[in-house]
């Protein structure tokens, strides 16, 4: 049972890979941590991915053990489906008001047996996880590997037929739940609020989301994931196996017209990775990547790129000006081929994937009074030497809250923020942090 007042050393905001890793590193140092996540499960964006570069490990194999370790750690309290409402500074650090949103399922009693899902008569499109390509019940466990494995009810869609109440062996359905307020007293706060992708319908030249066979890379991740909607790569309009797939790089980054002048760092590598996975899943398919610069800068990344070229993935330096479709809804990419006398070509593909970029997931200014830079991510005044220190004393930031970065870099900055927060607490108490959970 969550008590309504929690004393911890550190409140970590955001249960994606950076937040989990920061929590684990602090907890393993003996600090008490509360981890707030606004979704019903931790895991963040990473848990939705298929396989990850540069090792091509199955993403779940990296994420789910960290989720389990976070959930089972004796020094970590998970506050899922919760949102921070307000933060006030006091002598010991911060007093934080957190709202626990109602699941309409008694969290402590639910065993995740999913009996309720079997009897619930209504299906809803799974928008959160699958872009509406599959369905879940009105009462549902968010996804197979969710942590915690607890059901939740989409109360707006519920018809209150009561079937789940009868089916639930743990007697934990409660339609009367209301938002609860928790108070967390913490000495430090770590913002691991993550990113969202640039909207794939933002660019009217690329069809503004109206072309059915133009999707974004997150949707492709799901198509490639073993837990994905179809278990294979099919194109949306007619369920056909695509023979020709194109990636449009920088479709949301390095583009002043979208207000995203910066590089999103991950798109080159994920496009190459997806291209490799597609080549494995659809050996006959041609994959073309239209790019401006290939930025495979990380450890082992350049070698990954060279492997992709050797596998036959085609890299074409060119600026995609426009995407239209023919009468069969095949996307036609109009591209200026920089390597070929700047000739303008119109190439027909079965499926086009927009390599969308990263935007800040959350504005830290209103609640935390933590300044953001002109790119909208958390401002880091001394970014070279103190890469996790924000403009507010005692509040630190990590992962993609501080700018686009890949999983490897997020995990490393999470280790760094743990060191920074630990050092801060040590300096401000003179002794190792005392365990202080109520």
């Amino acid at each position, binding site marked *: 049972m969550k008590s309504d007042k929690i004393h911890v050393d550190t409140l970590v905001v955001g249960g994606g890979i950076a937040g989990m890793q920061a929590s684990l*590193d602090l907890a393993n*140092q*003996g600090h008490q941590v509360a981890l707030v996540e606004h979704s019903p499960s931790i895991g963040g964006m990473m848990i939705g991915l298929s396989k990850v570069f*540069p*090792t091509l*490990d*199955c*993403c*779940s*194999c990296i994420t*789910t*053990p960290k*989720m*389990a370790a976070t959930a*089972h750690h004796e020094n970590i309290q998970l506050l899922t489906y919760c949102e921070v409402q307000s933060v006030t500074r006091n002598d010991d650090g911060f007093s934080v008001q957190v709202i626990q949103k109602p699941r309409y399922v008694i969290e402590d009693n639910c065993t*995740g047996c999913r009996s309720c899902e079997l009897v619930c008569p209504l299906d809803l499109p799974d928008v959160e996880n699958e872009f509406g390509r599959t369905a879940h019940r009105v009462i549902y466990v968010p996804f*197979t*590997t969710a942590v915690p*494995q607890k059901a939740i009810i989409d109360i707006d869609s519920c018809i209150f037929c009561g079937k789940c109440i009868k089916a639930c062996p743990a007697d934990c359905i409660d339609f009367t739940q209301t938002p609860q307020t928790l108070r967390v007293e913490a000495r430090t706060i770590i913002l691991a609020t993550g990113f969202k992708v640039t909207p794939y319908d933002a660019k009217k030249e690329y069809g503004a989301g109206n072309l059915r066979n133009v999707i974004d890379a997150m949707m492709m991740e799901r198509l490639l*994931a073993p*837990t994905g909607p179809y278990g294979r790569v099919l194109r949306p309009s007619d369920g056909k196996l695509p023979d020709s797939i194109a990636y449009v790089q920088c479709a949301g980054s*390095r583009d002043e017209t979208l207000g995203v*002048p*910066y*590089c999103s760092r991950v798109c080159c590598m994920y496009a190459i990775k997806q291209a490799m996975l597609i080549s494995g899943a659809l050996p006959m398919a041609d994959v073309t990547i239209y790019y401006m*610069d290939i*930025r*495979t*800068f990380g*450890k*082992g990344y*350049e*070698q990954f790129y060279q492997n992709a070229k050797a596998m036959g993935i085609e890299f074409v*330096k060119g600026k995609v000006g426009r995407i239209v479709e023919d009468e069969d809804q095949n996307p036609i990419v109009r591209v200026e081929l920089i390597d070929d*006398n*700047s000739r303008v070509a119109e190439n027909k593909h079965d499926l086009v994937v927009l390599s969308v970029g990263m935007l800040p997931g959350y504005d830290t200014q209103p609640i935390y009074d933590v300044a953001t830079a002109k*790119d909208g*991510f958390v401002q880091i005044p*001394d*970014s*070279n*030497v*103190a890469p*996790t220190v924000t403009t507010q004393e005692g509040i630190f930031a990590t992962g993609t809250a501080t*700018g*686009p970065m890949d999983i*490897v*870099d997020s*995990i*490393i*900055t*999470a*280790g*760094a923020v*743990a*060191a920074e927060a*630990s*050092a801060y607490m040590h*300096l401000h108490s003179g002794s*190792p942090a005392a365990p202080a959970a109520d």
Partner: protein
Amino acid sequence: MPEQSDKSNPPEKELGLAPDPSPEEEPRIGVYVCNCGGNIGDVVNCKQVAEALRNIPNVVTSHSNMFMCSDPGQKLITDDIKEKGINRVVIGACSIFLHEQTFRQAVERAGLNPYLYYHVGLREQDSWVHYNHPEDATEKAIRLMLAGVAKARKMEPLEPVRLQAEKHALVIGGGVAGLRTALDIARSGLKVTLVEKSHFLGGRVAQWERVFPTGETARTLLQRLLEQVQAEPDITIHTGAKVVKTKGYVGNFQIHIRQQPRGIKADFDAVDQAIAACPVEIPDEFNYGLKTRKAIYQPYSGCYPAGPVVDWEHCTHCEKCLEFSHNHDINLDDTPIEFDINVGAVAVATGFRPYEPFPGEMGYGKFPEVITLPQLERLLAADGPTGGKLEWNGRSVRSLAMIHCVGSRQVDDVHQPQPDGQVNNYCSRVCCTATLNAANIIHERLPETRIYDVYTDIRTYGRGHEDYYTLASKNGVTFLRYFVEDIPEVYPAEKGSYYSMLVKVKDQLTWGEEIELPVDLVVLAVGMMPNPVDDLIGLFNITPGNDRFLLEVHPKLSPVETSVVGIVLAGTAQGPMNIQESCTAAAAAASKVVVLLGRGQVEMEPYVAQIDIERCQGNGDCVRVCPQEDAIKLETFSKNGTSFQRAVVTPANCNGCGVCVSTCSHRAIDVLGWRLDDYEAMVDAITAEIPVLEGVPA
């Protein structure tokens, strides 16, 4: 091996009857086959494997599952332990190096001894290498799992060896990464000793002019960090010092350090005269050979620790400097000192060196007009050889070409390999933004100077880096793009030409046209290579990757840890990084050290030799062959009035090398967890006939 002498024999011990072997618990084995999200299941028929294992003796339950490592997957195991009384667990999944610990913890949570778990690698060693032979891969999986079950029948509960850990860490390297690591470890309450092989701290950053993305000078940044380090009482710094010998393991490394003397007292007041008097002149490495220095030198004024040192390698002992020495301020007979420290963990922050182009590579070493980017940084620095003026032959540089990817992203058969036969096929990550940063600084100082940027891909990936690219374009930098198959050529212009050098580029931005760029100066944006650390690799048993940088265990699961527990990596010893990335990695490394040592105790695997005292005949073969010190010895026991000798193991000193096991003719020794009997049972399981498999649901 020291001979056993009589006087070292311990007093006789009474040998009681060996305790009855505890009534053996009947093994109840749970078998789980992970699909690994298709990584295994796309090749190996996991259901069939699970089915094949179901009906063999001692197997109580056998499943396949999409993700065994997920929470629901782990719950499957813990539920079976609690509900079905499973007391041995065998999982076929990814590599043991990834998730063995995960599953051990799960098993432990359910109340089982974590060593009653056996992990079979079905991904890296089966599905990922036999994807064209799914049937054979499935058969292999079945046989390996059968071997796992055979082992599981014999597994016994084990307890980790618990050792006191020094709350003290060693940081090797005094560049930004080492300083940052030391600071973060110390600020979390542990002691730190930092050793730096040169006589000064600051590493490569001290040689830089102005850094991205903050725009401050490298010196300001370094100063800030150094002040914090100096203010930290728990950090001890040894410069001119090297690790020369190591012993021990996590929690208790004994480190032997040799420190070169400085030869000159810190308060020596006639520095300039002594330097002037020194007749030795050698290339100044701090300025990348752009000027010379003496055998008494300090790299730059304001360096830390302050004051000059004697370069022992080049000093000729002419004693001319001694003229200015009072009170033995200069001591040319100073000798190195050696001392030991005990630490619990080690952070390797040994940094990088810039790629050194081969003689003649793009004209380097052949024409003085061809320099590297680090050399350019020295020319731009206020305390550099030209006082910050970018001049060539007495006048400001009017035109220069900067060529990217020199020593990075190299390709076999195009580039000359390093002595190990490998080319640098990696991206060095920092050169693109560093080059554009330098271009912008040059434009600021010399707006009329023409700058050509010759690249393959511009990789301004980091936060704020793209702004440098945009600004360079605005500043009128001309970009040309080359392909690796058409490396730009650098050669001198005809005598009397306005510009002395020409760079020929097959420019892909202008349809592959060959363009000759007339320039005063050519700057090669050289990549990074790790500082050579073969000595440390040998001393600590850590591993470099194919790119020669030190290797982490896994980029996501253990991104700064080496395969040796207690040894972590900080900064560019691990791979190319910029300052921000080095400091981040360094802080992450510090975090891991604090996790390891913060509690003052570390746990080690219980894989040490164990004597079966009933079988031991006390002939001492094991004692003679044991390569460790004090790991195994003969002790005298007595029983019923007769005394005899038996071997005894000191677990903390045994590393489980197993040399004694194969030596014992009575099979009285085993390494716990890795018994010979286990292997024989596994061999039998793999070679056994498998009943023909039928009726497995598709």
